[in-house]
């Protein structure tokens, strides 16, 4: 074993720095799932009747479905009866009106993660709808957004206050029958974010939600719905971390974006859920359905994601380019280390004329991890002059990991142009030695090389997020030198 291989191993074997458990009294359902659980859930959340019907319909459909097996990931089958479907931090009366009322331990947890809510509120001007376990415990900057006519609230609140919008849009991008996990989510989702940007409004600030899974064995079923009405503009940031756990935790979120005529939605994610320990034990299962419908002409949706966490990541933020001249973009960095598995990519469905899509995917594998890009570019007969450009790069760190690329291209329109480029490279010992010879530690060198590799994606992230993403990449790679 050469010195550098040994270094790799030493460096890889570092512990997850963000692993800790916040002790909170939680009001949690007993594990198990049947219709009575859904009734109870809907009731505890004070939902309108139509929502209960929606959930039951989804649940009944889900029962007829099978867990999909096509992804390039391996995991033991999930016992859905062993999961508790509701967990909320205990709240006094109606819950907090300001940060002062938030459980100090919750605030402390955010601080440990480097996400000081109070500082953000003061300094960054970012409105945060923080999801702690399944209930949103803090929503800030509401006033300013309200002045602009922007609705940004927990989806459970939107269900009560804006049922007409929910009725019209919920499930309109990802129907309950879409897939196994989406159906499950529709049946049991507990909370998430709701955003509505009215016509012609440019959202005055970047909207941000920090997710956090806390209670052991509580599946998290987030539901996010963002509607950008005609000519509006919104940038949404989603960032996640989770504490260390022994048991696998399921996360099956659904995110739906609707962009009307001339609307622009930019959705950025930094995901750093607990990836499991160095032996592959524990870690989050992240099975997410994210989809955008560019419903109106000239609309644009841009997904940017930096995925470093989770034991298994299985997600394909997609764009359905319905409106003529609409644009879909997907910029992704997916990093896997140790025994992590990621099967991620995107789908671009071209329906309208002159629709354009860009895919830039950067996969990094280290340790014994497997990293898969899976992407679909589908051009329908109606999509005259559709254009797609796909670039798919893989970087290997060490010699025990894997990178895989599965591009699917279906074109039914002869005027379409579809390009696909793919590369696979390795961080060479020569590159490492060169950087070390200039005074950089092996860790800094790997981090620098990987950040260079990801540059095209990072430049798509909002500034403060880009800095965070670079730091996160460094943290996640600590150790993987090769």
């Amino acid at each position: 074993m050469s010195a550098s291989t040994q270094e790799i191993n030493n460096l890889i074997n570092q512990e997850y720095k963000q692993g800790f458990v916040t002790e909170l009294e939680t009001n949690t359902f007993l594990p198990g799932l049947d219709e009575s659980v859904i009734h109870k859930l809907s009731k505890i959340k004070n939902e309108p009747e139509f929502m209960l019907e929606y959930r039951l319909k989804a649940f009944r459909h889900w029962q007829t479905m099978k867990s999909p097996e096509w992804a390039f990931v391996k995991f033991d089958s999930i016992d859905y009866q062993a999961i508790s479907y509701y967990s909320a931090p205990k709240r006094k009366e109606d819950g907090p009106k300001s940060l002062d009322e938030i459980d100090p331990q919750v605030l402390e947890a955010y601080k440990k993660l480097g996400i000081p809510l109070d500082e953000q509120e003061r300094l960054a001007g970012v409105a945060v709808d923080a999801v702690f376990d399944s209930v949103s415990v803090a929503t800030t900057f509401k006033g300013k957004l309200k002045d602009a006519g922007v609705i940004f609230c927990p989806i459970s609140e939107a269900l009560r206050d804006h049922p007409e919008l929910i009725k019209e849009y919920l499930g309109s991008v990802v129907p309950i029958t879409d897939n196994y996990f989406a159906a499950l989510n529709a049946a049991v989702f507990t909370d998430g974010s709701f955003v509505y940007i009215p016509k012609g409004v440019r959202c005055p600030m970047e909207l941000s939600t920090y997710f956090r899974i806390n209670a052991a064995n509580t599946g998290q079923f987030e539901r996010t719905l963002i509607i950008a009405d005609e000519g509006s503009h919104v940038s949404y940031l989603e960032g996640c971390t989770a504490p260390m756990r022994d048991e696998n935790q399921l996360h099956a979120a659904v995110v739906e974006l609707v962009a009307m005529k001339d609307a622009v939605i930019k959705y950025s994610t930094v995901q750093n859920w607990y990836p499991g320990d160095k032996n592959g034990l524990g870690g989050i299962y992240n099975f997410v359905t994210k989809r955008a419908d560019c419903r109106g002409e000239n609309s644009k949706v841009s997904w940017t994601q930096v995925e470093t966490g989770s034991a298994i990541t299985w997600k394909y933020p997609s764009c359905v380019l319905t409106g003529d001249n609409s644009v879909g973009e997907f910029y992704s960095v997916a990093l896997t280390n140790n025994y992590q598995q990621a099967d991620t990519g995107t789908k671009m469905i071209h329906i309208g004329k002159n629709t354009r899509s860009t895919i830039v995917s950067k996969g990094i594998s280290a340790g014994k991890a497997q990293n898969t890009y899976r992407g679909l570019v589908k051009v329908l007969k109606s999509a005259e002059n559709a254009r797609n450009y796909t670039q798919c790069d893989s970087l290997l760190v060490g010699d025990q990991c894997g990178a895989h690329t599965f591009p699917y291209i279906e074109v039914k329109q002869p005027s379409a142009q579809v390009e696909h480029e793919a590369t696979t490279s390795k961080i060479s010992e020569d590159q490492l030695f060169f950087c070390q010879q200039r005074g950089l530690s092996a860790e800094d060198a790997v981090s620098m090389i990987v950040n260079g590799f990801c540059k095209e994606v990072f430049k798509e992230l909002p500034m403060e997020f880009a800095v965070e993403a670079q730091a996160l990449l460094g943290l996640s790679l600590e150790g993987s030198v090769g």
Partner: protein
Amino acid sequence: MLSIKNLHVSVGDKPILKGINLEIKPGEIHAIMGPNGSGKSTLSHILSGKSGYTVTEGSATYQGKDLLEMPPEIRAREGVFLAFQYPVEIPGVSNVYLLKAALNSIRKHHAQSEVDAMDFLTLVKGKVRLLEMDEKFLYRAVNEGFSGGEKKRNEILQMAILEPKLCILDETDSGLDIDALKIVSEGVNSLRSPDRSFVMVTHYQRLLDYIKPDFVHVLAHGQIVKSGGAELALELEEKGYSWLEDAEASA
């Protein structure tokens, strides 16, 4: 500055260096010459800390410290600089970013504060002019798409900015046309100082026309078979290496 005593180095089971002795004092320029396969590159690699080599015997002391014990980045921070024969490309990482990260890691090692962004740019731009490089180089990815000459000049630029004490030039002249060779040599000459030493590893004498060494050592079969002044290089140019190798074989 550097004292190498009876250094034996192997790659796997194969001995490459078989008892090197070398004393380098501050301000001196030593040229290491020799035919292919004589161990020249191994010597520059072992001094700069590249992995894959085993020291089986002997020592190398740098400024009173055991050089061979130090990890490569510590050697770099202590002032050992290797100008690579084949500088690597690092896509997406700009030259200026690497330079700043490198300079700061060295400053930190010496308990100095990080260099101010403006001061850094002033420093770098001055050095860029010195080496007759285009400022655009700074913002291009490290060595990516550089010509052979540009890569070597980039190495010298890094040397000029990091201001090492012991500079090892590994076949810096290889792949350079005569104009590039002049520019690189001028760059090196401008860095000569009484407290900076150079080890130039080269196959050909032509580099020594531009950078005049104080000492020339001939390496053959893993040993220094002859040492002398600058005139030895000329003799080698004339006679080739075989007479020395033969002499060694018959000795």
